[in-house]
């Protein structure tokens, strides 16, 4: 081995150590633990055979996909508005919109409870209107609201940067050719934003798949994958199931991210 090569290995050593400590070893351990239960390596099939686990998996996927789509829809409208309109207090509004970035999931959970919990603002409001108290904090709807609140600022920051970089002449050109506002949005604006939409949508999806703090705070009637893993691991000491579920969660999220990155890749090339 030449000395230059030896030096390169030396410099790369921390990277190998890091990869081993945080990536390879825990994953290997998870794989081993998952296969060490009473079902052995069939634990992976066992979680698929357990209707409750499958149901949880589907619910988590649906929730995450829903949150991603809702966040992107809201984020696109707000980002386009903020990128194109100048008004007094705009900078303040932008920084206020990114405030939730600072909150952990637990705090977001508290806020949902304050908003839509048993003693929440929405409940008090609907009661004052003579209706039943509106309470949805402790359900999937509460979790949906919490994740939306959690993801929106992340998506917004990315989309605003992308919206500001769009050449206004592109939309003017489309309009000069007779395109209606809706056609301009469909044919020019959204395709121009698509790399940012795919990238920030993937982040929103991954965050919602793995988020735990908010779900844990709202608790009780919510079956999402992260909660199930926590229950299996901490309360039932069912390490094999917890590990198998963890790997399933990781693989699915990773797969979706890889898929979108692939799409974003071609999207970026097309928009270049």
């Amino acid at each position, binding site marked *: 081995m030449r000395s230059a090569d030896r030096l390169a290995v030396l410099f790369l050593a921390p990277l190998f150590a890091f990869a081993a400590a945080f990536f390879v070893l825990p994953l290997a351990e998870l794989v081993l633990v998952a296969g060490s239960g009473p079902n052995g390596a069939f634990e992976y099939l066992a979680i698929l055979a357990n209707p409750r686990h499958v149901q949880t998996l589907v619910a988590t996927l649906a929730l995450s996909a829903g949150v991603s789509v809702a966040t992107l829809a809201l984020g696109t409208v707000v980002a386009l508005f903020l990128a194109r309109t100048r008004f007094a207090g705009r900078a303040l509004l932008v920084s206020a919109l990114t405030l939730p970035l600072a909150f952990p999931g637990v705090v977001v959970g508290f806020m949902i409870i304050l908003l839509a919990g048993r003693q929440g603002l929405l409940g008090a409001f609907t009661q004052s209107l003579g209706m039943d108290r509106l309470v949805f904090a402790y359900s999937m709807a509460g979790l949906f609201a919490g994740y939306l609140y959690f993801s929106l600022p992340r998506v917004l920051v990315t989309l605003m940067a992308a919206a500001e970089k769009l*050449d206004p*002449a*592109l939309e*003017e*050109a*489309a*309009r*000069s*050719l*007779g*395109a*209606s506002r809706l*056609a301009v949005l469909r*044919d*020019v604006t959204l*395709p*121009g934003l*698509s790399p940012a939409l795919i990238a920030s949508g993937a982040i929103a999806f991954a965050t919602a798949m793995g988020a735990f703090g908010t779900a844990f705070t709202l608790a009780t009637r919510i079956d999402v994958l992260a909660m199930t893993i926590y229950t299996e691991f901490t309360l039932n000491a069912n390490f094999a199931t917890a590990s198998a579920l963890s790997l399933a969660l990781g693989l699915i999220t990773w797969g979706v991210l890889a898929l979108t990155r692939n799409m974003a890749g071609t999207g970026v*090339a*097309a*928009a*270049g």
Partner: protein
Amino acid sequence: MKPRTGAAVTLAGCGKTFADGTRALAPLDLSVAAGETLVLLGPSGCGKTTLLRIIAGLESPDAGGRVLFDGADVTALPIEKRNVGMVFQSYALFPNMNVRENVAYGLRVRGVGKAERSRLADEVLEMMRIDALAERRITQLSGGQRQRVALARALAVRPKAILLDEPMAALDAALREHLRGEIDALLRRLSITAVYVTHDQAEALALGDRIVVMREGEIAQVGTPREVYERPADAFVASFVGTTNRLEGTVRGGRFACAAGTMALDAPDMPKAALLFRPEAARLVLDPPAGLVLKVEQVQFQGARQKVTLCTPDSVRVVVETPPDLEIAPGMLMGLALDPNRFSLV
């Protein structure tokens, strides 16, 4: 493609003051005849682009201003209802569509069927001699090719007028000169109404049926290229279009007098006068008699002609272009003879 004629465009009392109080355009009247190519020429910030955007419908004129296409008031119509073709400095080609899809886009939003719009788009591409590029992505095109695609896209919808905003500013000089001839030939062949914004005087002189020289939101002069070049309305126009020499002095008793001498001139007495003339509107004579006498400072031999820079006793520089047969060297004293009717006095 069949030749066609665009609409006559008339602006009446169109001014523009932006929300922040900046006045981009003083209220002005202007008409473009059907089929005419009108060039808006001026330095940056003179309001020429604002004027173009008012015609397009991307900006609305201040209250009282009206835009008419063939006599019909279109002031309230947004751009998508005006049927104008626009070509932007950045070309603004849609990166998510290939060349043919770009050119066919205007037809697509008009509801023309897929086969028919492909056929029409290919027709325009062929006319622009870029049919070989139909399947290309925009990122695979050179600047000159993008320019042609942008023009093809604007023409494909058979607009009432085509509006070009500095369409060649991003191209290099040689390509610009080549495309200038091509665009000029195309606009004439289609006899479409065209409004062309540029800050390049050579482009304006080569392309325009008429040139509108603009300065600080106002029209400084409207005229044919020849009129604007040979009879500039004022010193600004003279200096902006081509090279202009300027000698300052007085006119008394039918003679112009300045530091370089005097010459006969048929004009009323003026205590302060400036003589403006182009480099090619003067001749140099050896062994000068009485008259305007200047000292040669520099001679640039250019083959077909030579460019001579001369200097008056009070250090004013004058540039004259003469045939190359006259042997001139720096330091010589030369007489300056102006061609009658090819100078102006202001």
